[in-house]
């Protein structure tokens, strides 16, 4: 470097002589580092692309949804109890409640499966498993997150549904039903909840465990009364993220839960979720420009708002979690 002529930022030739006896006065002015700028620009572009894409999607969603709301009032959208976009006697009723009901029903079933299983695995992995068992089990568990959801959908339809029908009777359990999709979706979410909760549990300082043991706590008491409460906000964040996945999940419900929008709390009924409706409408049943076509943007926007709210909630919990100990 020293042999090459250099130019300082101020435009003065830099000393080429070496360290002793600088012929020029000492300059501490910054130099232009061209490489830095290029890298900075590229990195900025990477960040910008994802941000602009997100903004663009949201914009399209809400602009097209507003077309829909010119024909159907927001009031009607949220209060009408029937969703009949594809003809029939009640054609033209666009009450989103049955779809929201379907989504929430399947999500609730999924969470009933995923929270106990996920939390149980997390407590086992963090507090009970020998280090070697943990090194093997955690990656295996996370592998479950890699199973394509379309495969899980077929698993729900061809395995879980027959099992449920065998247990509860074919007259009770319809071929397409919320329970089957919900249970399999719960299994899908277990790795998310288990892995994130395990991180939260492992992050609890060893000192807290030791002091609890030092007071005569048993392993179970230490895990349940000290470690789990200390990690609670991290666990809640994991559950909320899992719930976000359940709400947005499409393939499993499209395959196994059915296509019948319905206000029901019966898990064995055929239902339709918001995501499954969008798949059905986009899949060719709605003509472009029709009200039915526009309705998918309204449903999509609502779906976006729901998962967005959950993500905000999760982030709040994570922030709180940082402050706990």
């Amino acid at each position: 470097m020293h042999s090459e002529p250099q130019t300082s930022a101020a435009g003065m030739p830099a000393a080429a002589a070496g360290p002793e006896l600088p012929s020029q006065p000492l300059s501490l002015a910054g130099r232009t580092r061209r490489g830095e700028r290029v890298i900075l620009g590229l990195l900025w572009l990477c960040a910008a692309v994802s941000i602009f894409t997100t903004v663009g999607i949201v914009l399209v969603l809400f602009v097209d949804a507003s077309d829909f709301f010119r024909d159907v009032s927001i009031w009607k959208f949220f209060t009408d109890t029937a969703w009949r976009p594809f003809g029939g006697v009640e054609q033209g009723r666009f009450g989103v409640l049955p779809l929201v009901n379907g989504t929430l029903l399947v999500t609730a079933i999924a969470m009933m499966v995923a929270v106990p299983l996920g939390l149980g695995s997390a407590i086992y992995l963090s507090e009970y498993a020998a280090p070697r068992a943990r090194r093997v089990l955690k990656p295996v568990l996370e592998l479950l997150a890699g199973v394509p959801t379309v495969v899980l959908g077929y698993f729900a339809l061809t395995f879980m549904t027959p099992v449920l029908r065998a247990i509860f009777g074919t007259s009770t359990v319809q071929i397409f039903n919320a329970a089957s999709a919900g249970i399999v979706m719960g299994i899908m979410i277990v790795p998310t909840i288990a892995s994130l909760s395990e991180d939260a549990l492992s992050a609890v300082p060893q000192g807290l465990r030791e002091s609890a043991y030092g007071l005569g706590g048993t392993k179970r008491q230490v895990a349940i009364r000290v470690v789990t409460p200390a990690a609670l906000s991290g666990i809640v964040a994991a559950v909320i993220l899992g719930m976000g996945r359940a709400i947005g999940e499409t393939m499993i419900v499209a395959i196994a839960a059915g296509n019948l929008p319905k206000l029901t709390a019966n898990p064995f009924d055929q239902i339709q979720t918001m995501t499954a409706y969008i798949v059905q409408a986009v899949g060719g049943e709605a003509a472009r420009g029709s009200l039915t076509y526009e309705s998918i943007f309204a449903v999509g926007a609502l779906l976006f708002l729901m998962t967005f709210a959950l993500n905000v909630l999760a982030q709040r919990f994570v922030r709180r979690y940082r402050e706990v100990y």
Partner: protein
Amino acid sequence: MDSAQSQAVRQRPVLDVPVDSRALAHHTAAEHSKLASDLVFDVRDVTVRYGVHPAIRNVSLQIYRHEITALIGPSGCGKSTFIRCFNRMNDLIPSATVEGTITYHGQDLYAKGVDPVEVRRRIGMVFQKPNPFPKSVRENILFGPKVNGMEVDADEVVERSLRRAALWDEVRNKLNDSAYSLSGGQQQRLCIARAIAIDPDVILMDEPASALDPISTGRIEDLMRELQERYTIVIVTHNMQQAARVSDRTAFFTTEVEDEASDFRSGKLVEYDFTEKIFKNPSDRRTEDYVTGRFG
């Protein structure tokens, strides 16, 4: 040791006057005969290993009722490892093994069938870093009684434990506040109060004041002298003045090169005696070098 005399001994400045060794020998013999029945821990030839390497080896010493025993020595000499043997805290480290015997009131602590949970209920511990639970002051105190299924008057236990830990007046109006709202020194006294709440027989303290400022340290030391009336205390400390100020007996540990090739070191007990003797007239050269500051 009557209390007036021990008080005088404690207040004498450390390391100033040569001690009459004959008087000391006489003193030691008298103490010994009196305390033989008050043996709390009898440690025989204990070696603790992490994996294959011993962290501390062949330690034998006795700990007596209502005394404060200090474990001192340079970093890495295994004193923290050693103190964790008394309440089987080393059980929590999968690779740790304890050889030799430690009896507690005549019972082998490491015998088959001994439940470490029962051991820890009688032998409480206070750690280096104040580590209250992220709960209220009150819940911190009541944790021990709750997990041990003790039927207690909650308010009474909270007040008594906090009074004994000299913390009551400072927190009486903050019992439902988070323990984390207290200062570091208060948190450490809360940890002591929490240990007292299950009415242990022994309290182990692993450098309880090392994370605290001098004023908080002074309060913890005063507190230890008060607690000595009810409990037997074993304390690990880096601070020689602290050992000299508060303890009745002192064990000096050092590190020894175990294996020349790998420079692997393990801890060893060099000398164990009355604190006064350790600081004024140690028998071992290494002890003298350490307590006079020439080493460590």
